[in-house]
């Protein structure tokens, strides 16, 4: 059983899914959390509502301008009926089709739909996942009123359907990969669009560090492992963001110097430079071993 690494905590909170592209290098994607999916949905629903109202106004404007209301009011009504149906059923499908798996709401929150098997997102999958949206979103909204309104032989059917819709609505909260039913049926995931940012490497010394001559023996570099290396890297990143305390740096530098039995004044006089150079040297040593297939996970592991 491996120890849980503190510097992974930010990552391990996210749920990921790995997909194997044809190039054979597995890629990890972060699954969109339920909260941001609901926000995206809310935004999309808002847009749908707005567009429905817009449609009503446009229809009224057209028919009033054309003086058609007396003769063709029925046509306006039928346009409205069909229009609502189309907007409701096709909004998500349409945008996910032309915007690489994102609706306006998803784009706002940086989400997108991908196929579970790693293939291109097909039309069928999109149709399936968005048909299921009907029972997950739209029907529950309409069912309450229907169940009371009809009050006749179909009411029991409405109640039954509503119970089912409740299951469907709460489904993503219980699913380990927070899929909704439409995702299962359509064979899709909703993921967070990855963002690539390359930061400055901590192992490239600053000019100050280059002037200082510090060297370590192989024995000194054989004490720590990858876990300690990454912890140190995090500390150095903190220094860049001006979040580190000078006293802390000194204490850490001294602890390291004690542990590896380094005898010199640098840990006390210039702790930051010492830490930077130690980090570079330690990483070089560990990477050298890695090439020989030897991993040293942490300081407790004997190499």
């Amino acid at each position, binding site marked *: 059983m491996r120890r849980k690494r503190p510097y992974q905590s930010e990552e*391990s909170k996210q749920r*990921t*899914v*790995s997909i*194997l592209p*044809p*190039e054979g*290098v597995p*890629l990890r994607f972060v*699954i969109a959390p339920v909260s941001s999916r609901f926000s995206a949905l809310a935004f999309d629903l808002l847009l749908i509502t707005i567009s429905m109202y817009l449609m009503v106004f446009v229809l009224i404007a057209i028919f009033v301008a054309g003086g058609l209301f007396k003769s063709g009011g*029925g*046509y306006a*009504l*039928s346009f409205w*009926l069909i229009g609502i*149906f189309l907007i409701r059923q096709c909004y998500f499908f349409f945008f996910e089709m*032309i915007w*690489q*798996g994102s609706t306006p709401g998803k784009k706002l929150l940086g989400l997108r*739909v991908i196929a579970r*098997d*790693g293939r*291109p*997102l097909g*039309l*069928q*999958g999109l149709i*399936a996942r968005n*048909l299921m949206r*009907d029972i997950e979103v739209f029907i529950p909204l309409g069912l309450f009123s229907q169940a009371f309104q009809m009050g006749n*032989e179909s009411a029991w059917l409405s109640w039954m*359907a509503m119970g089912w819709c409740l299951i469907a609505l709460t489904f993503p909260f219980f699913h380990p*990969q927070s899929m909704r039913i439409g995702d299962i*049926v*359509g*064979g899709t995931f909703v993921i967070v*669009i*990855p963002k*690539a*940012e390359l*930061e400055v490497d901590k192992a490239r010394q600053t000019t100050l*560090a*280059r002037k200082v001559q510090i*060297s*370590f*023996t*192989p024995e000194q570099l054989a004490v720590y492992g*990858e876990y300690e290396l*990454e912890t140190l*890297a995090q500390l150095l990143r903190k220094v860049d963001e001006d979040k580190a305390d000078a006293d802390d740096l000194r204490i850490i530098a001294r602890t390291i110097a004690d542990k590896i039995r380094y005898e010199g004044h640098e840990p006390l006089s210039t702790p930051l430079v010492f830490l930077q*150079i130690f980090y*570079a040297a330690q*990483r*070089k*040593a560990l*990477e*050298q071993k*890695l*090439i020989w297939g*030897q991993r040293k996970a942490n300081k407790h592991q004997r190499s």
Partner: protein
Amino acid sequence: MDTNQSPTSSAPSTPRSVQFRKEREASWRELEDIVERVQNKSLSSLDDRDLQRLPLLYREAMNSLSVARATALDRLLIRYLEALCSQSYLAIYGARRPSRRMLWALFVAVPLEIRKASRELLLAILFFAAGIAVAWSLVDRDPQWFHVFVSPQMAAGRTPWATTESLQNTLYDSGQKKGDALSVFASFLFTNNARVGLLAFSLGFLLGIPAAILLFYNGLVLGGFLSLFASRGLLIPFLGWLLPHGVPEIFAVLLCGGAGFLMGRALLLPGSLLRTEALRNAGLRASLIVTGAIFLFAYAALFEGFFRQLIVDDVLRFLVALLQCLLLLWWFYLGQKQEQKDLAAENFEQETPAWPLQADPQRGGR
């Protein structure tokens, strides 16, 4: 390990991964730039040069990622490469804008899927027929049953207590309604039917029980009417009134029910597959069938709304119904032709470029 190779390294020691990064960073940056443009617009917005560079750079980045995972101890570097490769992967393999050819392929794929789901369709027909039979026999014995099956709005005066003449009139009402009233009727019919059909599909998830109920219920309504009109000797005219729009409409109802059964079966009897996988397979197939059904509903509603009242001759009505059947058959024929074409193409290519590796989605989550 030979420690003498690089002992106490000269003071500003640079790890291998720093060198590794220095050599490749330029090409990563180039890929980053191209991928960003694809994300903001689309693949087709790239010029020829970038389009050519993209797959090369992508493979290079994938290579870098795989090397970095094995040899570099710079977490930020690996994280960057993972994000970059994921982005490029999505840009290259993610989604495609559908072309007209894809839509056509979808259109002809529907009848194929319907044929593959013939067992479910048979089950749907069974439930529908059972509904008809039950309603018919019960109404035949006691007309009171009619009210149980048919709601007053739907009956619209067509009850066992109406006179034969008034019943006959409903069949040949030559349409005093104006065009716009008919259009409302048609669009209402379409949206209502399509929604019920969609419900049968999406609730089919519930072991197919709602689909069965829907089919049985629709069968009951039809059976009630059939029995009523048959008791007055109006069965043939009623069928003539019903079938021209009923052929596509009833077929669409059956399709939706069949799609629901498809889903229900996947959940109940997934076979050797995981339930999620079985559901996905069924969902992809059923969604095609339902799409076909929606178009049939739209077609039937148009027909019912506009043309039904224009044709009042019994013989003509049956001819139109026959024509509808022929149209459906033609659709199936198109599907079959496409299937044969696909098969021929497959044989010709010998080795279809298959997806080489499948990721296991169950392994992904942590």
